[in-house]
């Protein structure tokens, strides 16, 4: 029998996220695995290397909670919502401690995941001619094209110990489907030693199999599926709920104050038992502002051979 991979988020984090591990939490603005990040904080992990193209608020929170020693990233702000001050304090004032950072451009970081996923020694890209980034990050190197065009920049593989992502749905076997912005999730997952997926909905295999082109990760690439509805809040899940932009705007003030961000982490993460309690604290009224109207994709036919 194929194993059912559905486990509680608590168990998945306990098993796959160990102290000192390199953890990719991917989701490009969309489907950011906040609930999983919070569970890492609850379990008090330390010494983590966090990989996220856009660290976003979740990384500010993990830093404030003392979980993180090192960051691999390509954008250190929070979209429209401005600075991530816990990151800034760590980098600008080494407060409370310096933060090791490996920095790339978006495409460079994505190419690192690609090389990791495809077990390549390097991946070429054309982004860095003249830039100071290769000087800042000596992992960015060059290769001479054997076809005579000169040197091209390359990046080495990035292979997280575990990659955690959030998706709209998966079946119990571990087949994961998502729509909307799909980011670096497929590559970050295939590059990783283990993969944990939190989902809005666990569906029957028949639902997955009715539309196989929507599968981003086949079952073999997934170790644990955790049913965590609304697990991307305050980011969003296309078609399920919208981004909590008010929260993103509030974050600047919270994170600017070193005590206040710690208070926030205590109150909303450490003092909530799990994501359900976090949502309960958030309240239904707030949630109503995030609801979206339906916008159906429509159905296509895959066809079935007649006997």
């Amino acid at each position, binding site marked *: 029998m194929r194993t059912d991979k559905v486990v509680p988020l608590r168990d998945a984090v306990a098993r796959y996220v160990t102290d000192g591990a390199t953890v990719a939490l991917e989701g*490009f603005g969309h489907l950011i695995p906040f609930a999983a990040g919070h569970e890492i904080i609850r379990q008090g992990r330390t010494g983590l290397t966090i990989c996220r193209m856009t660290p976003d608020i979740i990384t500010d929170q993990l830093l404030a909670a003392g979980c993180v020693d090192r960051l691999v990233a390509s954008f*250190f702000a929070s979209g*429209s919502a401005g600075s991530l001050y816990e990151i800034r304090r760590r980098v*600008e004032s080494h407060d409370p401690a310096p933060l090791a950072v490996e920095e790339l*451009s978006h495409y460079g970081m994505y190419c690192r995941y*690609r090389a990791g996923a495809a077990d390549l020694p390097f991946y070429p890209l054309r982004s860095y001619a*003249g830039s100071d980034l290769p000087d800042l990050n000596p992992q960015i190197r060059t290769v001479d094209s054997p076809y005579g065009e000169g*040197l091209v920049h390359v990046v080495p593989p990035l292979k997280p110990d575990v990659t955690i992502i959030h998706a709209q749905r998966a079946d119990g076997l571990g087949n994961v489907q998502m729509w909307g912005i799909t980011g670096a999730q497929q590559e970050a997952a295939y590059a990783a030693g283990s993969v944990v997926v939190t989902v809005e909905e666990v569906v029957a295999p028949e639902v997955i199999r009715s539309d196989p082109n929507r599968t981003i990760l086949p079952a073999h690439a997934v170790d644990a599926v955790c049913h965590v509805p609304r697990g991307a809040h305050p980011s*969003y899940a296309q078609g399920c709920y919208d*981004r909590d932009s008010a929260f993103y705007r509030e974050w600047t003030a919270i994170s600017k104050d070193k005590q206040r961000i710690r208070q926030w982490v205590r109150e909303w993460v450490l003092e909530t038992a799990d994501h359900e309690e976090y949502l309960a604290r958030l309240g239904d009224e707030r949630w109503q502002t995030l609801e979206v109207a339906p916008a159906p994709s429509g159905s296509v036919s895959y066809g079935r051979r007649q006997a």
Partner: protein
Amino acid sequence: MTTHLDLAAASDVDPASTEFLAAVAARELAGVGRVFAGVGLPTLAVDLARRTINPHVELIYESGVVGAHPEAMAEGIADSVLVSGAEAVVSMEALFGYVLQGGHVDVGFLGAAQVDRWGTINTSFIGSRDRPQVRLPGSGGASDIIASAAEVVVVLRRHDPSALPAEVDFCTSPSPVLASRDPAVMQPRGFGVRTVITPLGVLRRRDRLGELELAATHPGVSVDDVRAATGWDLAVRRDVQVTRPPSVEDVRLLREEIDTVRLYLR
């Protein structure tokens, strides 16, 4: 004077205002096919251009959205309103590899903390990189965009010698001029920064390996004002213009239809 407001008439918004910058930036999109829009001021400029001079400009976002038709102003390049009703959402490889690096983007629209004489952009550090005075957002897609977009337009919220220094503190997104100093490396396909719009005027580069020149001053700003606020000996075009201010309608659209929550308008 009639009570009928002339929407095409010049508004009197301050040249240093977001409305002014966004409206002047929007003009850069006249006749442009595909624009790669960053977050912030570029969002406003692109939205305004779609409603005025270029309704068919194709909006491309680094999140993978191609041909967006947002029903509301996007708060960020990964906003759900960019996805719903878009013509395509493609993989990151298709977006950065095929669309961008493959040469399909006409204009990249970026913000910056610093821009130097050659159109080099710093969005990484103010001060030293080891212990910076300000840790800026970093590259994001900017260094990828500058290498491969046909040209780049930058909007700066400040114009002073620290925002336009002789030399940037860190070169995040290089001018082709810098790239050309290492000719062994494959050169970027792009022109680099063609236009910089600031609260004082508009700077442009004429040649791929040339420097920024003052092409226009905003109303009420002198050439000397601009030169004094620039960190190098800024060249001035012989035919330097005075910027046409945004129209009344531009300002109305920005305030009443685009950024109704005043997220970017300040």
